[in-house]
């Protein structure tokens, strides 16, 4: 059976790739249309923050705070205010002059404030917040741990041999995988805040400890000064070093590494991948057409009068369609990366986080696409039907999967192989190689679709 299936697949691939019309339909057309749709939906011509506003976001601030130099400090509150767009410079109270919040724009260009960027709300119940993300109501939930402030406060004073006896507890950003761009923005702001906070505290703490080590009496003077509300406030503010200015614009001066990309590139990666998957679905239709054409030409009947089973024939068609879809997807990814390289001004591959992970998505995704074709084979009897039925199925799957620029709430989107493919690729685009679930679901979808198609083909389809 395997030999016959491979033989049929080889013949199909030879015929497909030696035919100019097939190549145009399979490769050039999706490439062109994909780029056009990406440009239209992705607002590539308006590369700026205007397309991203009011990202729905919630914060669960569990931070219990700490005391530094007699002053109560709660870095969680700081982050809460930062994401809420508060003017921390004015709101810091005592010592405000020392805590200048660098909200100025980079290069003098008008900045998008965090207040405009995020539509933030505070939640008390972490589980409820997660549910809101799962349902698509929120783009992300930020969970600030109870010991966040304590973990970030350095040990200062005599005998303090290390600034941080314990590693600071990380802030958790629970995000919607389908809203990769928004999720990444939230993560970027939170990460920047934490890192700048940590860096500032290390620097200041180290300086004070060095001073105490050289002149132990300075510890006493520091302690005395701590009684002064203004000085204590300044010290606390210094420790806080609120770094809200790190995210004043969406677009930085230039990408520092492959994960620091322009917005337009990220849009291209996400929408482009969705489009690539959408067009890969047409490879499935091509597979169906192949079966119908063979039936009409009589070659299907002739094959089935040899020692070839229906299962082998269909497996051969699946294999041929699988390889075609994989080839089409790879070509589109390379092309999208070239477009992205043009935008970024440097040559790179958008999904280079992990090649094994990339193929762990692409292989089952193209399998699922081919499996869909096998199901269509069982239900489409004439070539005229494939245009209507195939296109309808493709559009529904693409819509559920987010290929048209909007997302459908889970669990409906889970039904679409486009969702799992695009989600997996979005993760890879963000440097996240944890795509095992996506690969598993796509594989199962592919096998299930093939099984269903084969069952109907063996029982229903007259040749």
């Amino acid at each position, binding site marked *: 059976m395997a*030999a*016959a299936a491979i*033989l049929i697949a080889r*013949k199909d691939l030879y*015929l497909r790739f*030696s*035919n100019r019309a097939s190549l145009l339909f399979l490769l050039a057309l999706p490439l062109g249309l994909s780029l056009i749709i990406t440009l239209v939906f992705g607002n590539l011509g308006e590369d700026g923050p205007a397309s991203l506003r009011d990202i729905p976001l919630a914060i669960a601030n569990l931070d219990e705070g700490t005391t530094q130099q007699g002053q109560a400090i709660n870095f969680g509150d700081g982050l809460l205010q930062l994401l809420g767009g508060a003017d921390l410079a004015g709101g810091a109270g005592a010592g405000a002059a020392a805590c200048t919040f660098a909200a100025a724009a980079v290069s003098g260009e008008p900045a998008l404030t965090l207040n405009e960027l995020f539509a933030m709300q505070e939640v008390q119940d972490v589980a409820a917040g997660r549910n809101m993300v799962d349902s698509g109501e929120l783009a992300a939930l930020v969970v600030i741990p109870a010991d966040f402030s304590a973990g970030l406060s350095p040990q200062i004073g005599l005998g303090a041999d290390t600034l941080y006896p314990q590693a600071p507890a990380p802030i958790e950003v629970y995000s919607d995988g389908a809203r990769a761009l928004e999720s990444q923005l939230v993560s970027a702001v939170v990460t920047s805040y934490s890192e700048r906070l940590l860096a500032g505290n290390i620097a200041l703490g180290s300086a004070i400890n060095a001073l105490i080590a050289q002149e132990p009496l300075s510890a006493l003077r520091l302690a005395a000064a701590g009684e002064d509300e203004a000085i204590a406030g300044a010290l606390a503010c210094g420790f806080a070093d609120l770094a809200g200015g790190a995210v004043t614009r969406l677009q930085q001066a230039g990408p520092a590494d492959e994960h620091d990309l322009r917005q337009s590139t990220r849009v291209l990666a996400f929408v482009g991948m969705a489009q690539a998957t959408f067009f890969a679905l047409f490879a499935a239709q091509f597979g169906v057409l192949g079966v119908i054409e063979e039936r009409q*030409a*009589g*070659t299907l*009947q*002739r*094959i*089935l*009068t*040899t*020692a*070839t*089973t229906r299962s082998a024939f269909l497996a051969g068609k699946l294999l041929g369609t699988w390889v075609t879809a994989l080839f089409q997807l790879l070509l589109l990814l390379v092309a999208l990366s070239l477009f992205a390289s043009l935008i970024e001004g440097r040559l790179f591959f958008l999904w280079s986080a992990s090649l094994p992970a990339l193929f762990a998505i692409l292989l089952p995704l193209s399998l699922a696409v081919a499996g869909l074709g096998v199901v269509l084979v069982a239900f489409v009897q004439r070539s005229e039907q494939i245009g209507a039925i195939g296109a309808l199925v493709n559009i529904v799957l693409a819509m559920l999967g987010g290929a048209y620029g909007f997302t459908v709430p889970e669990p409906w989107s889970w039904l679409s192989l486009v969702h799992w493919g695009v989600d997996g690729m979005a993760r890879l685009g963000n440097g996240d190689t944890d795509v095992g679930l996506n690969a598993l679901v796509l594989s199962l979808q592919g096998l299930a679709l093939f099984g269903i198609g084969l069952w109907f083909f063996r029982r229903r389809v*007259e*040749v």
Partner: protein
Amino acid sequence: MDTRLAERTTTLETLLEARGLNKQYKREDGSPLQALADVDLGIRRGEIYSLLGPNGAGKTTLISIISGLLAPDSGQVVIGGHDLQRESLAARGLLGVVPQELALYEDLSARQNLRFFGRLSGLRGRDLEQRIDDTLAFVDLTERQRERASRFSGGMKRRLNIGIGLLHRPQLVYMDEPTVGVDPQSRRRILDSVLRLRAEQGMTVLYTTHLMEEAQEISDRVGIIDHGRLIAEGRVRDLVLQAGEQDRLEIDLMDGSRLEAGLLQELERNLPGAARVQLERSDGQGRLVVHADRGRQVLSPLITALGTAGLEVRSVTVQEPNLETVFLQLTGRALRD
């Protein structure tokens, strides 16, 4: 499989045996259509068997079942001792199919087409290449083997279509109207090929055609199917006799006006085997028409009697009954209807 039937198949050298085949379809209005009703069919090794039937008679259904493309509602097909249902691959391995419609890949060359179907039939390596060469020579396409089939003439495509069915040297080859739409020269070549298959390779051929003269020329036996039933089966001559048709002798006379009614009655009475004697006149010409069981045996005494009566014979034609007349008599329809 049914052991008794399998044993019988082998012992009688019957290559294909179908027994009790039934198949029913549903019409669009939901009413049943009996496409096959208790059809029994046996084809012996090395014979050419023609299956004849008007459109809608059940011929395609029967052939589809024998080819393994369609499952019967009931009944059994055994090819070379293998039950087609239970030992499907083994049975189908003995079968070669030459469909009426060209079933080949137009974008592949003749050689590529043969290689593809040869591999599907389990041929590999040198054996495959040798058989491809032999087949190309057999269907006279060696010179054009590298060209795409789309560039071939209709006759060449048809020959390639035949070659694909013969490549793996099946024991039984089914040919569905292989001469449809070809020029007389290609038709002659195809018919000669069929006869050579049997003569040189001992191949068994199941042949369907709309052309009675073809069936009559190449067939050892003929089966006639109508309304889903095999209504007659046997050698052509036997079928003709079975149908009770007589030879028709036409004697054109130099001067038919001299033929008297009394002579007609005398001929009808005295000629051995003559059933009916009549005179057809037109424009002063006369034609004597004699219906007899064995026309050629009547011919000699008839000519003698006419000479004795002083009548000069201009020409003589003997029309023996053929399949066409048998078919018409059995089905009430001409085969092309």
